[in-house]
């Protein structure tokens, strides 16, 4: 295809991505390097026969002028990244000196919002992903063994938790595990403890969020694995059976190697989706015990009367950096494939 025709065809798509994805990333970066202007303060000294008195007042006119001159604020370099809202280098250095053991230090680390959010986001990502892969595979094998008439309805029912809006899905579960909801109240009765609440304890909150994550994403890995199972070569299975392989051995040595590329694809999608976990924290009102990076950005923009653009920007850049690290192996692999393809 000629360059000019290519450009004509792809111009709408490319320009919308450029304007609303590429440029915002740059502007977020610039934002993170600036800090809001301080208000201009005028100090006036009033002297009367009884003595002198100084009063301070905000010079709104000068403040507005300053803002107009440099709407982004004062240049601040990378200081936002190192302040206590983010990497908190100074505070950590002190904490390192003053803590006598590593666990004490980790506990202190947990006081800083970014490390808190990172610890939950990473734990969530690296626990939910393998569970979803494994359970999805089991369900796929199970459904594959069902009589044909059950397969359609099973797939229909399985799709629902994935299709449903994350916020709505987490609310539905939240109302059930609520102290007065069906699961919450039953648990209280079983353990005979009226104050038992999944929301009150950090550990239970984390577990609840991860269970939601598995419930929400398992259908995806199930469907992809199920489709993959339909393409397993029957001859190989038969050959293995004749050679005396048991059902388990057939799965282990024929089916799983065949599904490996699919597993890599699912892992990639799951990592991307789990890393941005956000809605369940709103739905479950879990922010007291579990915060994610996306939630942290939302909080910077939402909480105070004035959005903390520099903090949100810095957290966003750190997140993008994290995504890049997460994706690096895939990118390197694709690049190698592409180079090899071009050679051959």
């Amino acid at each position, binding site marked *: 295809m000629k360059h000019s025709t290519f450009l004509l065809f792809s111009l709408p798509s490319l320009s919308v991505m450029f304007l609303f994805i590429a440029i915002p990333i740059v502007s977020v970066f610039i934002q993170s390097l600036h800090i809001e202007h301080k208000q201009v303060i005028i100090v006036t000294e009033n002297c009367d026969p009884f003595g002198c008195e100084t009063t301070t007042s905000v010079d709104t006119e000068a403040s507005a002028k300053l803002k107009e001159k440099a709407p982004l604020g004062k240049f601040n370099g990378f200081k936002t990244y190192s302040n206590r809202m983010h990497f908190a280098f100074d505070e950590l250095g002190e904490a390192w000196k003053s803590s006598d053991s590593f666990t004490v230090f980790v506990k202190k680390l947990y006081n800083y919002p970014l490390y808190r959010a990172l610890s939950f986001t990473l734990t969530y990502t690296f626990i939910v992903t393998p569970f979803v892969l494994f359970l999805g595979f089991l369900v796929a094998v*199970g459904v594959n063994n069902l009589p044909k008439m059950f397969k359609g309805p099973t797939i229909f*029912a399985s799709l629902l938790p994935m299709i449903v809006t994350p916020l709505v899905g987490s609310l539905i579960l939240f109302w059930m595990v609520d102290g007065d909801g069906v699961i919450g109240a039953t648990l209280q009765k079983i353990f005979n403890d009226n104050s038992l609440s999944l929301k009150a304890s950090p550990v239970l909150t984390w577990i609840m969020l991860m269970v939601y994550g598995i419930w929400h994403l398992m259908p995806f890995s199930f*469907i992809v694995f199920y489709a993959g199972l339909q393409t397993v070569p029957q001859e190989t299975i038969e050959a293995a059976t004749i050679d005396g392989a048991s059902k388990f051995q057939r799965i282990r040595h024929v089916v799983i190697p065949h599904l490996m590329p699919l597993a890599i694809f699912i892992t990639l999608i799951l990592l991307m989706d789990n890393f*941005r976990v956000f809605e369940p924290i709103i739905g479950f009102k879990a922010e007291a015990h579990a915060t994610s990076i*996306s939630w942290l950005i939302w909080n910077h923009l939402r909480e105070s009367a004035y959005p903390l653009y520099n903090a949100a920007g810095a957290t966003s*850049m750190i997140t993008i950096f994290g995504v890049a690290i997460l994706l690096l192996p895939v990118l390197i692999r694709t690049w190698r494939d592409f180079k090899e393809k071009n050679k051959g």
Partner: protein
Amino acid sequence: MNTKIENKLTPVRIIAFIFVALWLVIAMFPFIWTLWGSFKVQADFFSKADWSNAIFGFHTEKQTGGFFTMGGYYGSWIEEEFWRAVINTSIVVFFTVLISLTFGTLGGYALARSTYRYAFWILMAGLIFRAMPHMTLISGYLQPFFAWNVWGILPTTIIVLVAINQPFTLWMLHSFFLNIPKDLDESAMCDGCNRFQAFRYVIIPIMWPGVITTGLFSFLLAYNDFTVTSMLLSDENETMIPAIASFLGTVQEEGKVMYAVAAVVSATAPLFFFVLFFQRQIVSGLTAGAVKG
């Protein structure tokens, strides 16, 4: 003979059957429970004393005289004006899908037919954009949108959703167009068509299965979005999902949780029918990206 073996009940089969049945209960029960409970009063749906109240509606009968009550639905749709959010969602979803597909079809076709290296780089950039948590972009939008005075209105949200949707749409349609043989449009070009005529008369008539599948996923993204819509829409332009979120804050304190429950069920119902009608296309769309690697 083959069928006989397939229908034999082995222990492995029974375990598989139980496992799938368990999963089905876990997948379906929350929906059925909430749907049923949305027609009850709060004392039943959140019944600490006895969960069977939610099934038999003990308090519902006492308070309203009937077995079912539409109280939650009346409260959310009429009193809290949830219908406004429904209309806003329809507008946002319709235009997002329409524009995403138009842009994506053209771009995906170009990427599938181009043999130059930049096509690869565009796809790679798309993959990176796809991985970007949407929240990271939001802080970049707010200041310019406030400055240009376009914050809070539906068109802004639509165009942002189109942009966020675009990487996925491009990838999906790109791999779909790769499956349409090149010879088809190239032979049309030999017959004297230019690229646009070839696209118009040869590709457009046969592209609908792929476009519809992609459209379903664009629909889901726009319908389910909370990040963008909650940050970029003003209160009166709110769509369903942020409206439900803001319900939670106000309604819970007033003892009107059932309004939120009814709204949640109202937002889920279209998705239920969506899966019912398009199950085959959703499954093929989910696997299309995977099988081709």
